[in-house]
């Protein structure tokens, strides 16, 4: 019974997800988001080399992010010179594996 009363006093309740999103969950490790205007071919190569999971690939004029492979480690954010930040997305489940491949156009100039 004690745990029940303690729970009431502290106001800890069951999440309302999926009716309402939990804001705190956006601070969990999450895949990166890129500023394509700051992204250069040279930076894309460095990001692809820094990704330990091989989830980033420099493919021609695009940087390909595989959300399925991303472990949210944040190494690309460190390497990225402000062009990369954590996205905070967690509702990423998909029926289609190819929907998890995101192409980010490289728009920055050297």
């Amino acid at each position, binding site marked *: 019974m004690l745990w029940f009363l303690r729970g009431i006093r502290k106001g800890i309740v*069951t999440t309302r997800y999926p009716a309402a999103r939990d804001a705190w969950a956006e601070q969990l490790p999450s*895949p990166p988001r890129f500023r394509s205007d700051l992204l250069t071919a040279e930076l894309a190569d460095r990001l692809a080399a820094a990704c330990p999971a091989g989830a980033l690939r420099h493919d021609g004029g695009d940087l390909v992010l595989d959300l399925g492979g991303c*472990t949210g480690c944040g190494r690309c954010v460190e390497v990225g010179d402000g062009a990369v930040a954590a996205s905070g997305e967690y509702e990423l489940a998909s029926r289609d594996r190819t929907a998890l491949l995101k192409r*980010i*156009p490289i728009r920055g100039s050297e």
Partner: protein
Amino acid sequence: MSEEQQLAREIQQRGFALFRRSLHIRTFDSGSCAVCESEIRLLSSPYYDLHRLGFFFTPAPRHADLLLVSGPAVRAADTALLKTLEAIPDPRIVVAVGACALGGVFSEDVLVHGRVDAVIPVDVHVPGCPPSPLALLHGLLVAVGRLEDKVRALRFDLRQETTA
């Protein structure tokens, strides 16, 4: 999508509609580091409380409707994985959980397949390392058709906005 595929998908969806209110989950660890398992276990905690959504864990694959697979599909687990899948009655759903299961962490070699869909067909992919319990809940709700997968509409590139 061809007409046959469309039809197959429709029949599949009709089967999945059976699961909208109650569904039993069998988990399968195909060689994961056990962090996915720890997140899956958290689903039963009072905070996430997956029973309120009609999901239940079952230890018996014959009682299960959904197979939740984590890990990079080590080859040593092939037989167990296939037997588990066969023991689950149709219609059944396979959900691959975590970056390992989706082909992120390990590449294919003599010990691992590196991805679950190299061994069995996967219906829903849940990314994350580990996927948080909320991500798992979203994956389960997508699997039973109670939520739409929204990842296709998400953008991971920004042009002018700040990345804050």
